[in-house]
């Protein structure tokens, strides 16, 4: 089916991204790889999602995917938020240094 090809292509890209991130963060890289590989597995064998869902006490496989997606999105958002804060701190330091070199006084 077309949707399977599209989804697998997307997940392969995500897997590739995870591998590229290996040098930056081992944990992040592995997490992305695991999520991508599980995704590919469930795209190839969609009926498995129902079995996993029942195993953890969720009615339907589609619901389980939705919940997982929600959790992943929240984690990613928080991660991005912290990164933005870090960049803001760097910008502050740069702006401060720049400001300090230009102190003015009217004599």
């Amino acid at each position, binding site marked *: 089916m077309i949707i399977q090809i599209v989804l697998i292509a997307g997940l392969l890209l995500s897997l590739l991204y995870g591998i590229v991130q290996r040098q930056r963060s081992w944990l992040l890289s592995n997490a992305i790889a695991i999520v991508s590989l599980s995704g590919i597995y469930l795209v190839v064998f969609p009926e498995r999602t129902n079995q996993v869902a029942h195993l953890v006490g969720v009615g339907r496989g589609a619901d389980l995917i939705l919940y997982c997606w929600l959790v992943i999105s929240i984690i990613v958002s*928080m991660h991005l*938020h*912290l990164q933005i*804060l870090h960049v*803001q*701190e760097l*910008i*502050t330091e740069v*702006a*401060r240094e*720049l*400001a*300090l070199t*230009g*102190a*003015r*006084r*009217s004599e």
Partner: protein
Amino acid sequence: MIRLWVVIPAFNETDVIRDVVKGVRAFYPDVVVVDDCSADDTVEMALHAGATVIRHPINLGQGAALQTGIRYALGRGAQYIVTFDADGQHRPDDINVLVDTHLRTGADIVLGSRFLGQSENIPWLRKMLLRLAIIFTRVESGLKLTDAHNGLRMLTRRAAEGIRIRQNRMAHASEIIHQIARLKLTIAEAPVTIVYTEYSLRKGQRLSNAISILADLFVARLKK
């Protein structure tokens, strides 16, 4: 003569900055105004009044401006640093009260307290908010203060070197208290007068800011 620098963070304060700087310089000549990228003539007015002016190239917030000013004052060999609001709500002669309190107690940091001193025309909602902030500070830092969010405070060089303000926006007041507790600096409070003018109220804090301050502090904890 003590080497005391007064740090005034300012953002769009054309109307009042000149009088504030002149008022302070009548007592202490070393004044640094940190202009947080104002869109008006704050820089010119402050220069005209005789202050040293540092201008942030982008707007960073009051906490960042304070830290910039403190860095500058330390670089100029300040033994004492006073932080002073730009909106005219503090009285320049209250700086003497801070100095006297330091000389009497030897505290590393002297915080101005409007509830030990006087507050003129304080609206009830603001009073309630400040009371809540005091309770929050007590729970969070263990320090028993009567006024946790007063812009008028004096730091000794030792304290100023230890404290590093990372909260760029308005959460810095709570952050300073938190660091005082962490660094085990000694603290004293001095009675000061806050004059609530129509202008300072317009420029001042709102209830919604209190919520964003709490959010900023929460995120800061997450980062540790």
